[in-house]
């Protein structure tokens, strides 16, 4: 049993593109949910719009940089379109409409009707060559020590991804520490009270939805660039819920909580994955009762149990004080 392998899988996932991407998206969700109290259950739609905006622009012959801009602008517009009719509704209705909107978008890009533009179920591939051409690291070279290694290709995505995470975090921190951010928190605490002292609650919620959406679109774009491939199956609703787990785990409404939550989640997730695969292959009695595919599913159980324990014993997340309480308690 090689524990280094298990640790390496966790560590590489934690510093890798997967965490950078999830962290970015979680930063956007944290602005919406952790600070403004918006129950946005369709967050993955912003990632989808970012990724498809980028890929389709390149497919239509545009340059990649333009695609990135199109992706972000599309996410801002999605926030506007989704927010205007729904943000005046009560929080639970907004939650329902947002998840429905996200599913509609995913089904539209997946439909055979849209296939000429979106590639249908198979999606779009090979649109990010320009991004990898900019890579200053030799793509096939290995970086790291022992089993803790990544390729130059991945390192390039890691560098870009974590720079984006840093910029997004500082940007959100600047907003949150301003009086604007204070109004957002007031809205989370009590909308009617915030109205009563003269703040346009609707406008603030719309702004939070659009800004959080724009940040999430960068996450979608990062994943698309890394994999050089997008397809509708990557934007299922469970992505949104994984993001919620990360935000709550780190501490909804704390600046670095989203990043920490993404890192801890991915560490647990990938380390458990490798651990179970190793146990299945090397420990006889486990190999006898679990097939490799079943062992692969155990990680969801273990991660689920770990998260339940966290929510029960530390509902305010890792980075918040007990005084501030859990994200949803008034």
């Amino acid at each position, binding site marked *: 049993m090689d524990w280094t392998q298990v640790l390496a899988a966790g560590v590489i996932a934690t510093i890798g593109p997967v965490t950078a991407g999830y962290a970015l998206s979680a930063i956007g969700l944290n602005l919406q949910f952790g600070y403004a109290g918006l129950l946005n259950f369709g967050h993955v739609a912003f990632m989808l719009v970012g990724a498809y905006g980028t890929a389709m622009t390149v497919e239509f012959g545009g340059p990649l940089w333009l695609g990135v801009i199109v992706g972000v602008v599309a996410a801002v517009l999605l926030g506007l379109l989704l927010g205007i009719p729904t943000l005046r509704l009560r929080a639970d209705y907004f939650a329902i409409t947002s998840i429905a909107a996200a599913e509609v978008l995913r089904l539209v890009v997946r439909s055979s009707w849209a296939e000429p533009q979106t590639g249908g179920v198979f999606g779009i591939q090979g649109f990010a060559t320009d991004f990898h051409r900019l890579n200053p690291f030799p793509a096939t070279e290995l970086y790291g020590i022992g089993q803790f290694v990544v390729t130059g290709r991945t390192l390039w995505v890691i560098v870009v991804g974590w720079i984006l995470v840093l910029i997004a975090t500082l940007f959100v921190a*600047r*907003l949150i520490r*301003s*009086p*604007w*951010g*204070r*109004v957002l*928190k*007031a809205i*989370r*605490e*009590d909308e*009617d*009270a*915030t*109205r*009563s*002292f*003269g*703040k*346009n*609650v609707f406008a603030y919620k719309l*702004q939070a939805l659009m*800004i959080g959406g724009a940040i999430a679109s960068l996450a979608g774009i990062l994943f698309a660039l890394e994999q050089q491939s997008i397809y509708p199956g990557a934007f299922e609703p469970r992505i949104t819920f994984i993001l919620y787990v990360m935000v709550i785990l780190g501490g909804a*409404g704390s600046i670095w909580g989203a990043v920490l939550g993404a890192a801890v989640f991915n560490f647990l997730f990938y380390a458990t994955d490798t651990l179970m695969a190793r146990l299945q292959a090397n420990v006889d009695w486990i190999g006898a009762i679990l097939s490799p595919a079943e062992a692969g599913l155990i990680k969801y159980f273990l991660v689920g149990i770990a998260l339940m324990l966290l929510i029960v014993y530390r509902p305010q997340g890792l980075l918040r004080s007990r*005084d*501030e*309480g859990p994200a949803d308690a*008034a």
Partner: protein
Amino acid sequence: MRPELDIAHEPGVAKPDPVLLIDGMRRSFGGLVAVDVGHLEIQRNTITSLIGPNGAGKTTLFNLLTGFDSPDAGHYTLDGRLLVGIAAHRVAQRGMVRTFQLTKVLPRLTVLDNMLVAAKTQPGATFRGAILGRWQGAESQNREQAMSILERFGLTSMVNEYASRLSGGQRKLLEMARALMVMPTVVMLDEPTAGVNPVLIQSIVEHVKDLRESGMTVLFVEHDMDVVQSISDWVVVLAEGRVIAEGPPGVIARNPLVIEAYLGKHRGVDVA
């Protein structure tokens, strides 16, 4: 007690200097007419209490006046400006601020932040302003204002505590203090003494008087008749959505219509 207004004691009477004028305001929920106020004027710089039995439409009238609900018909003006159909936050921006029957503090904000967030002048409260970042000056001015109001309300020692740590009575005080950050002309208090201990009631009463002394108009809903008698300049009685009487507190207490509205026609008749 201040000199009484020298006007008739009848519903809808004209006041010498009304800050708030209500005309034909109607609101019904299904078949129930919750509010049906023909004409009502609120005299500037007075404490006017709005009383009436449960279900008389007091809170509904509050909601209508502050933009939290919209009337089926009618209109009202604040300082001569028409306000009907205007969103709640705009009503507040125009100088009429309310508190709530069920106190609404912002529990996971500190007491100071509860105050600062309501500040009238703060360029950093807009997205653009927050990005540009030049809001520190306004912030320190607002902080000064907030501290002086908090001191008046005896909340100085709680400045950096989360509002969730405050007692029920302190929350009432904070809510009232917060309303003052908007620098309102009319303050509307929905049952400011409900569920508050007698000592604190006295303190709230003093604060309400202070509001009048500093030039504001106070309109408040109250169930405690001792409070109504001791601080009101004028009392408006609502029953089944209509104004059935108005006048100085001493006169209202003897008004047979009011006694009937509160106690029913058959008072004194044994129910058993």
